[in-house]
């Protein structure tokens, strides 16, 4: 147990955990899709995404300008490893 079973607090927040899970299986996902799936306001989602981007877990890509602009997100290798570690710990906990 001990440190090896420590859950990453940044991922453990329910909405961020779902964001990480969705990004893990996709190449990239648009802001609007995440907002729809998570049923959160744009400002709440922006805060979550900023937290994940600041930690180096996701990268943001913006294309176009104004209303036609699209913001998409992609998991970084660090984020991928962090999610894999988080998932492994959760799976291990279930086996205990």
């Amino acid at each position, binding site marked *: 147990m001990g440190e090896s079973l420590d859950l990453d607090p940044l991922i453990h927040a329910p909405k961020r955990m*779902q964001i990480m899970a*969705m990004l893990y*299986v996709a*190449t990239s996902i648009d802001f609007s*899709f995440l907002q729809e799936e998570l049923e959160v306001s744009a400002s709440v989602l922006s805060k979550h995404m900023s937290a994940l981007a600041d930690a180096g877990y996701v990268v943001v890509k913006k294309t176009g300008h104004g209303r036609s602009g699209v913001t998409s997100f992609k998991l970084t290798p660090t984020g991928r490893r962090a999610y894999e570690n988080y998932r492994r710990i*959760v799976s291990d*906990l*279930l086996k205990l």
Partner: protein
Amino acid sequence: MSILSSMETKTVLRDLQRAELAPFMTIRDLYVPWLGFLRAVFIGALTLMVADMQSREGTFAVWSFVLAITVTLVYIVASSVLLARRRVRFSNASAPSELQKEIMRSSMLHITSDGISALAVFLLPFPVKWMVPAFALIASLITFYISRARVESVLKDLQEQVNG
């Protein structure tokens, strides 16, 4: 971070599985009827062009060629727009294995259907050859709806598995 209880762990794991499945549900976006219909017209127009070019008279050769090229361009542009508008991008390799198999089967079904149409237009005698475009169009529509139904069914099964 404190250790989760067994119940909490199960909830977290289920939430993870649900979230991991969500991006793949967008594959439905690719099975929109108008694209299936456009594809069917595209295959029909191509076979019409070949059938006409092979005919002794070739009366409609130019027009069927123009039609085939036009539909081809419209189909390519429409598919590109549809793909560009998708809000989730993923490679088939990351999809659950059941879905991967179904996508593969769907492609094989279309290839088989198109292959039969192509062979028919080359092998059948006139005037039977003129029926091939209609057959190709209908066969393409049928394969599209079969593929769509099967993919829908796989997605439903995956959702049920996750929801327990």
